[in-house]
């Protein structure tokens, strides 16, 4: 029996040690001295994804600009919600940053009541890049333009299938928005992320694909890209018209940036904002982003707060319509 208790004590000791590691107390320091120790940059997704690639690109520039080491850590789960729930509970001392994706941080609290954070709790530092969402069909499809697609969907309500990432993801919302604007009905098939949806589409399982620009650039030769959700012509795909130019007043994309917990000192936010935005001016960085199919964006704290608010209003409206039906 004694040994059993010993084992239990051992387990508990282990727990306390780890608990202590997790809650290293935040110090109160003058924002002027910030940063005076290492900064944790949390990625709410698995390593190797687009958010990770972006963080890895930023890391050396950040370390140079801030004069402190920046440690990247992963907190995947729930499409990012686990990482963002952690972020809003962290000390607002500027030593814990997290990657931030729009529309994820807007759609998750809107679609599930038990999401562990509110959109407003996530304080954006900057938005640095985006992947506009494009609409594509197979290379040998009889559809040649967005107008063709709409026509086909009108003639056969509910029978045109479209692949994209999960329900209430950016892809799904773009799909719903297009359906609404064009007055058609199609069938959305959600996949577990962008890569599986591309694979299912390439295998001929769906007729249409909603995909990030980075994937479209990669597979440009294997599919017909009908339109893209950027504001203006997307540089890496100069021949593809925007959805707007095709007559539907909408933009669609995933924006990526970085955020801090609520209550962070404005001086700290300003310092971080400058460090992140300056990276875009480093020689070669923008070209690298374009080559990978990203659209560089330079949006500071204030602009980002406003942007998120506008998007939230727009998405709430679309979701209300869908859920109202």
């Amino acid at each position: 029996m004694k040994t059993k208790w010993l084992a239990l004590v051992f387990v508990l000791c282990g727990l306390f040690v780890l608990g202590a590691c997790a809650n290293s107390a935040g110090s109160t320091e003058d924002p002027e001295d910030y940063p005076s120790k290492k900064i944790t940059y949390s990625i709410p997704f698995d390593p190797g994804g687009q958010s990770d690639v972006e963080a890895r690109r930023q890391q050396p520039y950040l370390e140079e600009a801030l004069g402190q080491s920046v440690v990247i850590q992963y907190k995947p789960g729930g499409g990012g919600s686990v990482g963002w729930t952690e972020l809003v509970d962290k000390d607002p001392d500027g030593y814990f940053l997290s990657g931030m994706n729009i529309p994820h941080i807007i759609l998750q609290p809107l679609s599930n009541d038990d999401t562990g954070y509110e959109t407003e709790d996530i304080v954006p530092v900057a938005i640095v890049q985006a992947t506009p969402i494009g609409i594509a069909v197979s290379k040998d499809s009889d559809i040649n333009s967005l107008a063709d697609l709409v026509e086909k969907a009108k003639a056969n309500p509910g029978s045109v299938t479209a692949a994209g990432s999960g329900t209430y993801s950016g892809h799904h919302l773009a799909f719903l928005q297009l359906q609404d604007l064009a007055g058609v009905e199609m069938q959305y098939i959600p996949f577990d992320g962008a890569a599986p949806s591309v694979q299912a589409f390439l295998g001929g399982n769906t007729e249409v694909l909603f995909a990030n620009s980075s994937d479209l650039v990669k597979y440009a030769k294997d599919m017909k890209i009908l339109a893209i959700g950027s504001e203006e012509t997307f540089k890496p795909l100069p021949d593809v018209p925007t959805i707007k130019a095709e007559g539907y007043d909408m933009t669609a994309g995933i924006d990526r940036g970085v955020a801090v917990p609520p209550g962070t000192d404005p001086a700290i936010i300003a310092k971080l904002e400058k460090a992140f935005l300056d990276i875009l001016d480093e020689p070669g960085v923008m070209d690298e982003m374009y080559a990978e199919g990203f659209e560089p964006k330079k949006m500071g704290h204030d602009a980002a707060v406003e942007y998120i608010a506008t998007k939230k209003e727009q998405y709430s409206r679309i979701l209300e319509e869908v859920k109202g039906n």
Partner: protein
Amino acid sequence: MLEFLPDIISSLTNPINLLLMCAGVIAGIIVGALPGLTATMALALLLPFTFTMQADTSLITLGGLYIGGIYGGCISAILINTPGTPSAIATTFDGYPMTKKGKATQALIAAAVSSGIGGVIGGLALLFLTPLLATLALRFGPPEYFWIAMLGLTMIATLSSGSMLKGLMGGAVGLLISTIGISPVGGESRYTFGFSPLQAGLELIVILIAFFCIPEVIGMIESKIKQKKNKEVKKERGVARKLFFYIIKRPILVIRSSIIGIITGIIPGAGGNVAALLSYDAAVRFSKDKKEFGKGKVDGVVASEASNNAEVGGSLVPLLSLGIPGAPPAAIILGALMMQGIRPGPDLLEEHSGLVYTFLVAFIVANVVMLIFGLMGSRYVGKVISLPVYYLAPSIVFLTIVGSYAIRNNFLDVALMIGFGLLAYVMKKVGFNPAPIVLGLILGPIAERGLAQSMLMAKASGNTFELFFTRPISVVLIALCILSIVGPLLSTIFRSKSKIDEEIQG
């Protein structure tokens, strides 16, 4: 390919590349052997260091690490019944019983040899069959995923050891807990009880540790209290050579396991764990002495290890040919390529043929390196379990806690591991085998996603029957399902009949 031979040779004879390959393999084996630290994590940690390397050096190092990591998982699976990586789950079925019989070294050597052979076969397939296999990968759509999950679930029959009813109940529990979190189709939260951290669902590795390791550790302490001594590792000469020939003499077992591994690998979404389970199941079904499996039969270890290492090669097929990673570690290699300014995609093989072929040849060499290190290490690593229980048990508990936390940097996982671990102990006491539960947990999401997506596709096309029952790969999978369910029933009926005949005649 031959025109790239000079490139390949110059890259592979570069001492730095060779050194880093060996370092990668060794680091991979160590990380893989620690429960909770996976090949994916090791690759992610190494990724920033590869940024400054040459493209070929970076890929060779990462490839070595990946191979070592998948192999390393078998060490803890064999020694302490804890799969170091999910791929090694089927290795526990016979590997740990071997250890209990004092044959840990044999199990480790068998694992090293079969991993090496499986890995080389996977590498050769990757080198020569990539374009062919890529087309096959694209043939797997939602209905095929559904049927492959169904085929996997029929394995409950093989894995329930003892009571089929308890096996089915365990499988159902596994399927049920796999639904915790945000649903893959529909997006609503399920079984979170308003507790937001549960939105991410249960992490497979945490549950693996809980169900396989914790009951064993408690059992270890119990047997210590009852003054039972742990079996010493028996010393035997020439084991490696004997086992090597034992495995070589069973080419069908090794080749079948490798083929299952490669095919499972090319299907994105089904990883080494599914590969090893399917191949173990096949080994049991085709074997003449089925009863021996689960009690420490070398063939079980061989089937599992050959297939999960062949899967590594398979998982790189869709990455190199389509730019789609076939498994989570392959996703990190994709990240590494992007950081080198190489865009993986359908054109990779054409635009960077020299680099790709160098990587592929290095990949095969790294498997041989792994085999050598594995054989050398087996002699010493096996000694770990002869440590007294009062050192061994606490160290294992410590490792499991660190591992559970590290996998997602999440404290909740430690609590879940302890909670499910105690539950697993109680369930084992009343005769539930953990394997069907974990099987349900692994296959549940694949089955659910496949079914829901297929139903949506059927809704659009208006023909459910055609979608589920007429696609060629689906038909093959359905036939395998039926065989798998009906086969054992028929043989039981046949056997009992002949018994009755004998009785009548006698």
